[in-house]
């Protein structure tokens, strides 16, 4: 394909480099809303004590609806998305989000349902949530499920609280003297893992990665000997896309040291129907339904992070929970003595969970397994096409994703991982995840997912190879990329040094 014409002129163009903010568009007296009831606002205001009454109206933008809609439609056009292009962002599982799921979540019975509706009036929704609890228990191999966590990290937090509650029970029963506080976390772990450990009031013990990309088993043994082991947090396949084949040895080592095993389910999408965390010996699992069960990411959320646990931990799960009585009625449990409490206000992100339910129903046991099979197939196919130009961090069969290193490329040409990432934008693709996991030099982490076609993978591979070639021939073009995006590289340092976080319009004291 050849280049599009250069902009020869001073016209802003069809895709201008910047858009006014909604505050820039504000004009006094404009408005979009009209309220359904006429009330004497001042009279009502006057019933509010002066000290509690608002003095000046909030500096919100004043625009009519046509301006509002056009503004946000234009902004949307400045985004890349899974619906508009390939998005191989490693660890984020950017797979297609079925449109029918959005419609089901929007059905008035579901969308307008109040969380405190009497169960008799909400049997359908409770049944749906109960079915999803079962499905997640099945996928994870751990039967007791809470749907309350709003995201993966939230699930991690919930899981570690369960871990702590379990150890406290052991203390109470006199089985151990005091609550253990150390959690083993591999150095390949996602940042949320250690961050969660800290928030949960525990300590991280970092474990190095061995030559095959797995956890260093000796280091695990030493750590178990040296620390008061509360448990282990592990992703398997891990963030290198590698399945740790010595997982059984790892889990039994930690268990022998008295620890519980926490499985970070962000990569569960690789192994559905093939193996289950519960079968690997894990006690607690979170599932990122916005990854494995394909709910749209929304530019950062919402997602959901249900947690499944072994039966012996079930009594500790947060509340409320949905249960099914013998007579088939569904009900909501709001009190259990030993529960850790609540981690969000109601049932969790139900609007997201409905989509996860739909995904499970459409796929079924056959489709879920096939989704993982093709995700792994696509990843290995792409790896096979890139391996020779960008060496994999660990050259072996990968699972749903793999990590390449641009270290050699950088030494040879000065082109870094970030430059390759920016340059791939000019080919119409979203870049891979960069510089993660941390232990890989100039890491590029690629996850194609099962919803992409072979042609797309071939075209992406060709583009990556072209960039590597270009790096040797004309590194300047690569290092100055992107060249076709609405804006070019942005000055992040400047915004960190002099943060501008709020529109000037708001600060102006009219």
């Amino acid at each position: 394909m050849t280049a599009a014409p250069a902009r020869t002129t001073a016209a802003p163009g069809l895709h201008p480099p910047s858009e006014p903010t909604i505050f820039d568009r504000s004009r006094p007296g404009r408005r979009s809303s009209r309220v359904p009831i006429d009330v004497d606002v001042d009279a009502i205001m006057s019933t509010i004590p002066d000290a509690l009454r608002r003095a000046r109206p909030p500096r919100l933008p004043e625009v009519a609806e046509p301006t509002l809609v056009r503004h946000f439609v234009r902004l949307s056009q400045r985004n890349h998305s899974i619906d508009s292009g390939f998005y191989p962002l490693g660890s984020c599982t950017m797979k297609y989000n079925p449109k029918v799921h959005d419609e089901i979540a929007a059905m008035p019975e579901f969308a307008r349902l109040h969380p405190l509706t009497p169960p008799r009036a909400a049997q359908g929704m409770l049944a749906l949530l109960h079915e999803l609890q079962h499905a997640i228990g099945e996928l994870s191999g751990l039967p007791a499920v809470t749907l309350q966590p709003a995201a993966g990290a939230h699930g991690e937090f919930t899981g570690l609280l369960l871990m702590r509650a379990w150890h406290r029970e052991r203390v109470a029963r006199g089985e151990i003297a005091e609550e253990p506080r150390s959690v083993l976390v591999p150095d390949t772990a996602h940042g949320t893992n250690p961050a969660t450990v800290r928030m949960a009031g525990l300590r991280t013990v970092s474990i190095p990665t061995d030559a095959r990309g797995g956890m260093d088993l000796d280091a695990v043994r030493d750590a178990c000997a040296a620390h008061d082991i509360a448990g282990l947090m592990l992703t398997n396949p891990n963030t290198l896309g590698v399945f740790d084949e010595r997982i059984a040895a790892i889990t039994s080592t930690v268990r022998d040291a008295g620890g519980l095993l926490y499985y970070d389910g962000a990569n569960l999408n690789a192994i559905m129907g093939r193996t289950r965390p519960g079968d690997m010996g894990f006690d607690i699992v979170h599932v990122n339904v916005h990854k494995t069960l394909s709910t749209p990411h929304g530019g950062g959320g919402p997602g959901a992070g249900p947690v499944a646990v072994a039966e012996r931990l079930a009594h500790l799960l947060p509340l409320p929970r949905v249960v099914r009585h013998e007579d088939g009625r569904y009900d909501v449990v709001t009190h259990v003595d030993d529960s850790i409490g609540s981690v969000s206000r109601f049932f969790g992100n139900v609007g997201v969970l409905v989509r996860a339910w739909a995904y499970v129903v459409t796929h079924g046991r056959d489709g879920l397994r096939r989704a993982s099979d093709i995700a792994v197939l696509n990843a290995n196919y792409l790896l096979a096409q890139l391996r020779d130009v960008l060496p994999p961090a660990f050259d072996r069969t990968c699972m749903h994703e793999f990590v390449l290193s641009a270290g050699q490329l950088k030494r040879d040409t000065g082109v870094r991982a970030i430059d390759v990432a920016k340059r791939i934008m000019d080919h119409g693709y979203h870049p891979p995840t960069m510089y993660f996991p941390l232990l890989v030099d100039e890491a590029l982490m690629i996850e194609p997912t099962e919803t992409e076609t072979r042609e797309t993978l071939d075209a992406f591979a060709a583009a990556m190879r072209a960039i590597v070639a270009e790096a040797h021939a004309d590194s300047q073009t690569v290092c100055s990329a992107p060249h076709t995006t609405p804006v070019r590289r942005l000055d992040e340092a400047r915004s960190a040094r002099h943060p501008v976080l709020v529109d000037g319009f708001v600060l102006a004291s009219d």
Partner: protein
Amino acid sequence: MPYAPATDDDVRAMLDAIGVARIDDLFADIPIDLRLDGELDLPLGVSEPELVRRARELADRTVDLSRVTSFLGCGSYDHFVPAAVRAIVSRSEFATAYTPYQPELSQGTLQTIFEFQSAIAALTELPVANASLYDGATAVAEATYLSEQATGRSRLVVLGTIAPQVRAVLDTYAGAYGMVVDVVECDPAMGVVSVDSVASRLSDDVAALVIQQPNAFGLLEDAPALVAAADAVGAVPVVSADPLSLGVLAAPGSYGAGVVVGDGQPLGIAPSAGGPTFGFMAAQERFLRRMPGRIVGETVDEDGHRGYVLTLQTREQHIRREKATSNICTNQALCALAGLVQMTWLGPEGIRELGAIQFERAAAARERLLRVPGVLPGPGGADAPVFREFVVHLPKPASDVVDRAFDHELIAGWPAAQGWPELGDGALLVAATELRTDDDIERLGVAVEEALR
């Protein structure tokens, strides 16, 4: 399989390119004894029309609030959401994008977050805000975690008039990072917490004072005085505000709140059984580098064009790991966008009018219910201004009344004892938004009357 395009031919060709014979070979790393023998205990997949039928069946067993009238509140409300909000959040480019790690391809999301932060700052009159938290309850918890880190203190003073669901989450969180939660209850008749009783519990070991305004009974706390009291002992004054009230109620920033949090559901988010909504957090400048979550900043690109980026990321888990200010990663961005669109749709005048209507509707519903024989005023009495919701005392168990009123195609409210046992069986929490007509309110009165017969 409609969502995974690979055909048998594709699979064969790809396996050849990889150099293995079967897909099973790609899973060779999984030890035999760990492999799932047999299949998952789930049904087979179905077609889209069958899925829709399944969903329709479940929906038919779920109340439809576009047909049944609801007076439920306590943190989730039946407000009007304009179609423009749905039209915008359903844009593929917003809904199917990931967190904006690559700014050149994410200016749409980044600018909307910047605008969202600005709108929250405008409502709260505080200089910094983040890109959203899970919900209003975890936002309160994050605010106390921030306070603990900022003050090095570990005691929390919390008003007993915050919503019970928020209280439960706060207890769970605070326990985790080892804070003591000291709750100051209100006089059930007053329905608000006296400033003196709070002041008496404040001392220099207190990390934060947590206030909800309006409180869970729809009543107005003397927030300015409480904030001052907290300030006096160096505790962070944390105000959990209903964003929809901020068109009429004083901006917490204007009376010295250190951190303002809240739940965004009233701003254009469908209840959907409790979530997703979004939590917001705004704070004074001094807390900027301790804020949890994403923050977007304005900057320029190489050609000097204005653009936006995720900024101050050194606070965050993917950089700071165990030293991060929070573990949050995925947040509620799309809900925050809905909130931004709703705030824009309302504008300063609209949010003022809509806020006033909440007082008017609640007063009208209370007035009607108090005309029902045997119904008595709850916390705050018969005349205190109430924002959207209020408690009344019924001469029979509220749960029975709700149950019987349901036959009138109406949900009369929430039995408040489920949240505050001390209020007793008869307490009913009733919420009336701008969507409740005079006729709806009259029907409520009649339904309760008959239920009490």
